[in-house]
């Protein structure tokens, strides 16, 4: 994949939430206000980048050469869980303003399937790159762009939800069903980026 196509597919055509369905819970849960969706989005970008930075070398240099690739799921989820805890502690001690902005969202991310998903997809997509560094660079780029795509979807959706608050919806559609149908329409607009099949 060329760099341009990685960026375009991760942000728009293969958007993590709207076409890959990863990270639906935070997408539907934390999208009530634009401010909180920006915080959540930034935290996700940060964790996706950092966990890819750790898991990709671990897969390439430790697991794959020893034929232990099947331990991927277990190793990755442990790394992500440990890492998120670590980031929380470090941010609280070192950069309190950033912690106040992102801190609330960090624990929610530990088991967000978008984060585990991006690390696994990176290994699937880029593990056969000619050189380790090329694969590593592309993996990091993909992780960053996937996070940006997630944030974009979250912010757009938060804008729509604030407008939906006062609309007149049938009683049994109120709440989650209406939210899901709104998500379906947003997803429809993103589908246009890949063209109708």
């Amino acid at each position: 994949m060329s760099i341009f196509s990685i960026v375009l597919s991760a942000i728009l055509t293969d958007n993590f939430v709207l076409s890959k369905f990863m990270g639906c819970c935070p997408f539907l849960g934390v999208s009530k206000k634009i401010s909180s969706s920006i915080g959540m989005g930034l935290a996700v970008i940060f964790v996706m980048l950092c966990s890819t930075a750790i898991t990709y070398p671990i897969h390439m240099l430790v697991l794959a050469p020893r034929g232990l690739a099947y331990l991927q799921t277990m190793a990755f989820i442990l790394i992500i869980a440990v890492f998120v805890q670590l980031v929380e502690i470090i941010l609280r001690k070192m950069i309190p303003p950033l912690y106040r902005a992102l801190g609330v969202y960090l624990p929610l991310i530990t088991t967000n399937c978008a984060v585990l998903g991006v690390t696994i997809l990176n290994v699937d997509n880029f593990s056969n790159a000619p050189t380790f560094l090329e694969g590593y660079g592309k993996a990091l780029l993909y992780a960053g762009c996937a996070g940006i795509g997630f944030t974009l979807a979250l912010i757009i959706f938060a804008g729509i939800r604030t407008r939906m608050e006062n609309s007149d919806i049938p009683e049994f559609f109120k709440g989650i069903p209406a939210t899901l149908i709104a998500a379906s329409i947003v997803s429809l607009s993103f589908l246009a980026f890949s063209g109708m099949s």
Partner: protein
Amino acid sequence: MAKTTKTSCLKEFTKGIIRENPNLVGLLGMCPALATTQEAKNAIGMGLATTFVLLGSNIVISALRRVIPKSVKLPAYIVIIAGFVTLIQFLLHGYLPALYTALGTFLSLITVNCIILGRAEIFACKNNVWRSALDAAGMGIGFTLALFLVGSIRELGGAGTWMGIPLTKGFEIPILTQSPGGFFVLGCVIAIVSKIARKKPPRTIGCQGCPMSETCAASQGGCSK
């Protein structure tokens, strides 16, 4: 729900199927319910794979509930769950390679399915092995049925087939098998289920709506999987 010792074993099993259906009533595990339901067949596969992991992890966690120290509860659960996920990956890769390819990444993502960690936190760590197994079987079957329902609607409406058998060819709306259709069908199914159950649909999802938000070890209710 913490004190369930009085409920009969049968109730333990049946509650997950309709009344406390983890997917349509509890709103957990939304990602697989959207991503693996293009075809009814894949939906059943995903449901059964999740049931397998849920059953295994619930039994092991409940058997070890006095051994695992409280402070490392969550990492221990995650390792047990990931172990069973690796096991089902091997089994599917070996015996059902077509399903293995169709489910793809979402097979690994069973590890972070809310339902499994949720049942471990809410049920398995407080109840004996037999009850935990029944609970897991009920919840797993409930999840499978929910996925199967959404998958059947999407496949019938979107591809004109059901379980691969052509039924409504010529009337299909292809968008239903694509991502917008997933959100739309799931939204409608949840609305109809809450209409039939005659109660208001849940207003929140994720951590706020998650039954384990109080107990979840990640202080703010880290169950936003």
